[in-house]
């Protein structure tokens, strides 16, 4: 009862807080102290969002961005997952790739944008390459730690019960390392999402949400910028909650390897 009252009070206050922030922003925008092109009112932003969605332009930009992010991440998974497993299983492979990965990881992916532009030209190839670079290391290093974190007792128990190398891999190592792999996917997506927006701004190719925001600056269209920011935030949020959340529920939570959070 007490908890329920607490919860409803929190919700009420959350609503108050959001309304207050919105009202504050809107009165700032309407006060005339700043040019309306720079600080548009909330209805203007809403209209830009709805117009963009209705005429399909914002949707098309979103699809381009998603295409780049998913292809780049797919490539990063295709390389990072097997390599991470090999690194976890073989000492020689670990010795070779771990120093390289540790040296490349602290270089922000956006630092490669000018180099990639020279190598691959403006456009899709550069953006996808940057996403790949951003997503590769979280994927690789988390898979590696996951495989190494598989409890050796499980492996011995599996062997004692007559599991071959093949079923040991599929029935013990893959499920055993999956909590780490999912963490890796999450981190990889977060970085990829930053990388794609930045790469689209710098290696502009006239499509993509990052490019929309950057291009809107030239024409002082702050309403379009804020509308695109909303779309970017919503997609990021949806991936985090819906895609990775349900992936987690379908695998590691169902297998009882991690426990569900409070919510």
């Amino acid at each position, binding site marked *: 009862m007490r908890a329920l009252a607490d919860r409803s*009070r*929190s919700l009420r*206050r*959350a609503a*108050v*807080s*959001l309304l*207050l*922030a919105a009202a504050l922003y809107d009165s700032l925008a309407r006060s005339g102290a700043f040019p309306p092109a*720079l*600080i548009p009112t909330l209805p203007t932003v809403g209209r830009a969002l709805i117009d963009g969605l209705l005429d399909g332009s914002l949707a098309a930009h979103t699809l381009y961005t998603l295409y780049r992010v998913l292809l780049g991440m797919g490539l990063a998974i295709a390389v990072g997952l097997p390599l991470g497993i090999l690194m976890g299983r073989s000492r020689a492979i670990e*010795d*070779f*790739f771990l*120093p*390289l990965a540790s*040296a*490349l990881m*602290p*270089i*922000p*992916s*956006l*630092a*490669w*944008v*000018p*180099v990639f*532009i*020279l*190598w691959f030209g403006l456009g899709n190839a550069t953006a996808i390459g940057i996403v790949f670079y951003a997503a590769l290391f979280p994927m690789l290093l988390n898979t590696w730690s996951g495989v190494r974190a598989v409890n050796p007792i499980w492996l011995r128990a599996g062997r004692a019960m007559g599991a071959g190398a093949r079923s040991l891999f599929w029935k013990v190592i893959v499920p055993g390392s999956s909590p780490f792999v999912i963490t890796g996917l999450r981190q990889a997506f977060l*970085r990829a*999402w*930053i990388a794609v*927006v*930045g790469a689209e*701004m*710098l290696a502009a190719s006239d499509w993509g*949400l*990052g490019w929309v*925001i*950057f291009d*809107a*600056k030239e024409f*002082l269209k*702050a309403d379009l*910028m*804020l509308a*695109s*920011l909303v779309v*970017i*935030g919503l997609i*990021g*949020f949806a991936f*985090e909650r819906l895609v990775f959340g349900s992936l987690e529920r379908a695998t590691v939570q169902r297998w009882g390897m991690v426990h569900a959070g409070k919510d």
Partner: protein
Amino acid sequence: MRWRAVARTAFPFVVVLALWEIVARLRILPPRLFPTVETIVAAFVRLTASGALPHHAADTVLRLIAGFALAAIAGIAIGIAMGRSRLAEDLALPLVSMGAPIPGIAYAPLFLLWFGLGNVSTVLLVGFVSIFPIIFNTWTGVKAVKEVWVRSALAMGADDRRLFHKVILPGALPYILTGLRLGLAQAWRILVGVEMLAAVPWGLGWMIFGAREFLNTDVMLAGVVVIGTIGLTLENLVFKRLEDFTVVRWGMMT
């Protein structure tokens, strides 16, 4: 034994550099776009000797420090307020949760529009990006301070001020340090990109982006190496030291 460990770590780099050199010498790509290792080293030496590279690097690090300091002060204050007061938590949490999932770099053009090209926008954006993990972790840390500690301090006659300094702050510190580390890492990841967009006169991001115009791939790659070195130093030296001096010494973390 030590030498073998060093050799084992160095081996992959030697292999990669050798491969790079072979590809560069075979001229599969034009040498302007794919310079040899010597050319990159020569560019590094030339730029260091002329003082340009240290100047670029110093400006980048200063921006990082300025933005990060703003975020650390404001973020820790907001996080502590959220952890101690229910009202502050309820009011601030929805705003923080809404701002956090948007990648900081997406705000860059907006900040440039509002605050102009240059340092102000860059520093504010760095601060804005790193504040979210700092707030979240400080808030979690303050809430994780054991109720027993607070009550026993109160029973022993601690006033609000001492409760804060002697119990809550040290108790939350492991989390706060994690937040600072995450915040700094995020700030570092976008700072270079923001420098490219904000057209600041000095800075590593601007240096490598400007080098593109003249096809100076050697300068770019030398810059990328410096950026990686700074990133590695921040991660390993700064925070490990800070942790050793505080939470490890107090026996809260090993």
